[in-house]
């Protein structure tokens, strides 16, 4: 996948690039409004990450142009300006998602994958990991072709793991993902363990291998041992 990162904070942009390129993506950076304007005009991307406050202009302006050009790229706003107005006007302009800073790189990665799935495959693309298959369009999970019934949280958790295989995911990152967009003040870290336990039980119960590894007290990692 080709991804454009429009972000004026160099260190942040680099860390995003490092994480995403480890997945085999190709990333380009744009550090200010003009650079972003030029790159979006010249090249095609699968996904564009846009910071709203940029030197030289507003990221919203770029989104407006992209939509006017009927670019097929999925757009995710990554912004420190987490005000309702920005979120609403960003989504109204046609951005596909909104991720307020600070965010976990794993979360960003999962969102990019979900977005590209929706955008380019109409959500019909299967996600699979060995014997486990997920059809995001139908919310269907099978283990070796046998269906497994998961709750919404367990399903979200599974997709999150499958989007970030072989990565260490902190409990905080998992909790934030599960408590959703609202990311409220719920002290949700405590119940991550319960969700993981339930998911693991259901998958292994259906005959899958146990891929969820605990990483010290820190978090979890989805990997085949």
């Amino acid at each position: 996948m080709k991804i454009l990162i429009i972000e004026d904070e160099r260190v942040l942009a680099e860390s995003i690039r490092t994480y995403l390129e480890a997945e085999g993506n190709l990333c380009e950076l744009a550090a200010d409004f003009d650079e972003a304007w030029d790159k979006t005009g010249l090249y095609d991307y699968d996904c564009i990450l846009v910071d709203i406050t940029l030197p030289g202009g507003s990221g919203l302006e770029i989104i407006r142009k992209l939509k006017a050009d009927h670019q097929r790229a999925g757009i995710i706003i990554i912004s420190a300006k987490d005000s309702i107005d920005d979120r609403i006007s960003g989504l109204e302009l046609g951005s596909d998602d909104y991720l307020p800073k600070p965010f976990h790189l794993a979360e960003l990665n999962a969102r990019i994958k979900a977005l590209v799935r929706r955008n380019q495959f109409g959500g019909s693309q299967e996600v699979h990991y060995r014997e486990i298959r997920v059809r995001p369009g139908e919310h269907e999970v099978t283990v070796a072709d046998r269906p497994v019934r998961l709750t919404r949280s367990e399903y979200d958790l599974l997709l999150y793991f499958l989007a970030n295989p072989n990565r260490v995911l902190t409990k905080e990152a998992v909790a934030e993902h599960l408590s959703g967009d609202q990311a409220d003040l719920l002290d949700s870290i405590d119940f991550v363990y319960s969700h993981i336990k339930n998911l693991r039980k259901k998958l292994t119960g259906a005959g899958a291998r146990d891929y969820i590894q605990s990483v010290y007290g820190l978090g979890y990692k989805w990997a085949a041992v």
Partner: protein
Amino acid sequence: MKLLQRTSRYYLAFSAVAFLLTGLLLFTGLRYIIDEELDDQVADASVRLDAYLAQLPAVPDTFYQLDAVITTAPIERVTGSFTFSDTVFFEPIEGEMEPYRRVVYDREINGQPYRITVSRLKVESEDLIVVLFGVSMAFFGLFLLGIYVLNRYLSLRLWQPFFGALTQVQRFDVKRKTVPVFPPSDIEEFERLNTALRSMTEKLRRDYHSLRQFTDNASHELQTPLAIMRNQVDLMLQSADRSETDFAHLQHLSEALDRLKKLNQALLLLTRIDNDQYEQLADIELGPLLRDKLGQLEVMLEQKGLLLESDLRGTCVRAHPVLLDVLLNNLLSNAIKHNVAGGRVSLTLQNRTLTVGNTGLPLAENGTERLFERFGKGDADNQSLGLGLSIVGEICKRYGYDIAYENRGQWHEVTLSFDVRNDALATRWLNPGNLQS
């Protein structure tokens, strides 16, 4: 006590004293003058009395002359001149003692010295004094009444600017955009008051605004460094060659970052509520929303082994969806977070009142007072931020919901009533323009 009452009281006390003194003065003065007059009359008449007595064959002991009683007594020799005094005699007709004015003097009549006593009835002059006294007192009373009425009228009229300013100050809310108006007054003191109030409210508004701006900016600016730190931790975690101690350090770092992020998020939310960024209202049915939330929290309930009792009847409230969401999340997660293993959570929604009850450790003393304050924790060393209930309080204040907390030993209960009347008030509150009328 009202100022008018207080000043009237002083006026009245002063008037009463002045009144009494004047009365006393008037009374004694009149009396003195009248006595003097009587005495003069008697002294003048004494010459004629002497001539009359000298004509008589013998000087009588006692005799009556109109309203005077005259007695004579022979003495050795003439000593003093006129002496005056008051006395009383029994009046057989009226059957009571009556006041008399007595004049005593010595005089030689036909070569024999006599002591002559003339006593004149004083009733008439006494009546005169009483009438005069009464009239002046009545006049004085009327005067007082007049002053009182005038005072009342004046204070209503003259103090008008003061009461106007008072109302403005009472209505003043530092968070609201409307500026209080203190109309100019041509009374110097009130104008001074207005000027002082004007500059004070303006300063308050400015200070509050800059403080709010600061919090807003600070929490916004914090987001980027937080994002950088978090992403760096994320990247460090992905390296394969980390030792267990590295992971332990990273874990602490990650947890601290998470707390910092939540704190910042809460502060942002509070400033956003203050900044009126949640203005659009929607009618929201609480029952389904609560059931949905409980579904999400099921795992947490299960993990703590909590028993949930819920009785949810239809209740619709008008609020911003995000704020209502935050409100319910905070209440519900508090009920779970501060619960004890194997405890109970009860949820009742009826008559536009939501009651969230839960078992938990008893609160420390005075804990309830600071419950809805920012960073007010019931328990100083727990991990919570102490912002959750302050956000709840802020949202309730915004929408005019009535919130009450009650703690009976192991049972904690938060009661929220979504009152209709307050709802309307809150809507008005959100549109400050309406308040100008």
